[in-house]
């Protein structure tokens, strides 16, 4: 092989090798870290997997927030006005968390049918509604209307 070709070969091998490894890694990492979103209705219908990290969204039910007396444990209900699911969390809730507000919780569905949340997200703008929550509410609304 002449040097020019050899050089070109090397470059192509570099590129192919690097890109191949990167794609493989990316697909693997993606498959491990995709968090699917479920609405309370979907969870009630048994569509959500157990003990897998999922995202759940809806409105915080009025009057459902209960705090533990001497720790930072808290539980509350999230609803799409069709079905309701209980979320348990330990830690500090975001500033915009309050009853009647749309939130998204990232956590695992446990055997007792509650969500054990690692993270609770309420968006930073009062007017803002997480789009997936809005869609879940719309769907629940449509389902209700269809009944």
């Amino acid at each position: 092989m002449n040097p020019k070709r050899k050089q070109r070969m090397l470059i192509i091998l570099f590129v192919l090798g690097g890109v191949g490894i990167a794609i493989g890694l990316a697909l693997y990492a993606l498959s491990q870290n995709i968090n699917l979103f479920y609405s309370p209705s979907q969870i009630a219908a048994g569509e959500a997997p157990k003990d897998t990290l999922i995202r759940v969204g809806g409105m915080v039910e009025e009057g459902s927030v209960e705090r533990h007396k001497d720790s930072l444990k808290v539980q509350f209900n999230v609803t799409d006005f069709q079905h309701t699911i209980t979320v348990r969390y330990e830690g500090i809730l975001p500033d915009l968390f309050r009853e009647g507000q749309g939130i998204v919780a990232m956590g695992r569905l446990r055997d007792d049918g509650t969500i054990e949340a690692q993270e609770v997200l309420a968006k930073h703008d009062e007017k803002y509604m997480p789009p997936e929550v809005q869609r879940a509410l719309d769907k629940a609304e449509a389902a209700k209307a269809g009944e």
Partner: protein
Amino acid sequence: MIPEIGHYSLVLALAVTTLLAVIPLAGAWINDGLWMRMGRPLAYAQFLLLAISFGFLTAAFLMDDFSVRYVANNSNSLLPWYYKFSAVWGGHEGSLLLWIMILGGWTAAVAAFSKSLPEPMVARVLSVMGIVGVGFLSFILLTSNPFLRYLPNAPQDGADLNPLLQDIGLIMHPPMLYMGYVGFSVAFAFALAALMGGKLDAAWARWSRPWTTVAWVFLTLGIALGSWWAYYELGWGGWWFWDPVENASFMPWLAGTALMHSLAATEKRGVFKTWTVLLAIFAFSLSLLGTFLVRSGVLTSVHAFASDPERGRFVLMLLALTIGGSLLLYALRAPVVKSHIRYTERSREVFLLINNILLLVATVTVLGGTLFPLIAEAFGKEVSVGAPYFNTMFSFIVPVLVIAMGIGLFSHWKDTRPGTYGRRILPLAIAGTAGGIGIPLIYGEWEWSAGLGSFIAIWLATAQLWDVWEKSSGKSGVVAGFKRLSRSYKGMATAHLGLAVTILGAAIVSSYTEERDVRVDTGTQVEMAGLTFVFDGIQELKGPNYVADQGIFHVLDEGKEIAVLHPDKRRYLATGQVMTEAAIDWGILRDVYVALGEPLEGTTWAARIQYKPLVRFLWLGGLLMAIGGTLAILDRRYRIRVKANKARTSVGESDAGGTQPAKA
């Protein structure tokens, strides 16, 4: 009246920009000197009109003119004046105007500092920037006009600026970031102009290099400021969230970093010409993509402004036109350009190629993770990609990149003597291993991620300092030798050390942050990281436009008080929005971070206390990178050329810095 003048000059700016987009380009096409020379005055006029427009919007803010819809939505009479000023770019319309004004500023700067360039080149560059300007000016005037009024029923007071944005970090973050984003339009315009002219030579790379570096410096500062702001303002102490909008600024940074390096190879050796052009197109396209992601609200993000599908479609169209048009031009013109320059597999060219491939892989990784939810949505699935995806990917890509970097620093153009690398690998590995084992142990139990991070940081820093030492050594001694090194070399070394500092900070703070959420009542003591935190109750506080509960925390180190921290829980009067304002006792080696959660019962509060070692290294590294870039621009060869050109009208092959590109 005032908003109307602003509006009017914005419309005039569109007219002038349209002329700018057409006349000089047409002049270059038909070789008409007069038409080509129209570029400069048009560019100045465009910038002047945009500045007037921006100035009048600012005046509307400062004068509390709530009949202007945008002012009413984003300001309030109680806001301090400096936040009224920064509120100009606190919402979608105003930040877009800032974007466009900065584009006008870059265009005018190119017009002013391109006296040495051949006329057709300048004409084409200015026209390409004008075309981009026309796109964005139509965007703002058709979909996002900041000068619309509420008439005749103007509100009494404004809805207030989002309290998160009422902060010094936000006064500076968007302008810096936009300077960076938009700055890549210059490299883009140069690339397209070179493609149109069919002359992709080393001169083209030499011209675009300083512009690219300036844009990169601003982008680096913008990203670092954004991360710093997130850290103390909204993140509860987090500094990078892999949020779509952070990614949107990180992708052009990665592509821009690749571009800077390939431009170096193109300028010095005339290699990778077509590749560099492609990178310039990518870097600016990614900036536009970032704008699209932020503006359209298609992705869930802390930055998402109220989403408006109309705007999304418009930016998407602009994006498609820019990328499609420039790639078409590339496809038509690029194959003409061929180089026959030899280099071996040990040469610096190859190392820069590795750098480019890895940075591009990193870019694509971020792009994939950011757009995946959008693609999945098209298939009816609602997913989000977690931060672990990005962290996993970067924990593979960055070490490979940095290790190659450490060796590549010793390379030479064309070919490097065999053994150059071999004799350095062992000492570097020893230094790296010592750092990789030793540094994490200072902070606690050894963890592999902290170990790997420290290893590569020390590897890179050692290699860079070693190279500086070698290049400074000579007959006249190291100090004199160091002084003789060129500014661009010193800049490069500073920026590389900055990267090492950032990596070290990221590795240590990620692994050894101590964090606890606690219930505190007056007198509660919390022991953490060898410090004692005593909660001394809450006091009430009245700010200009908010009321706050302020916690008092005494921080004690072995019984001695080292700081009193006052975290706030604020309620903003205009919106009733509640905001956490953290209190930080900062130090170069560690931050102590206290934030108030919510009130529980009686005098009990939830609070989060954090101890964050080396967190400041993250931004210190960013600052070093920016300083490095600035040093590189201040290099003698750029100034000498300016002087030389005062005597000469057109650029010849004069390069006083001895950087004559090799001709094959």
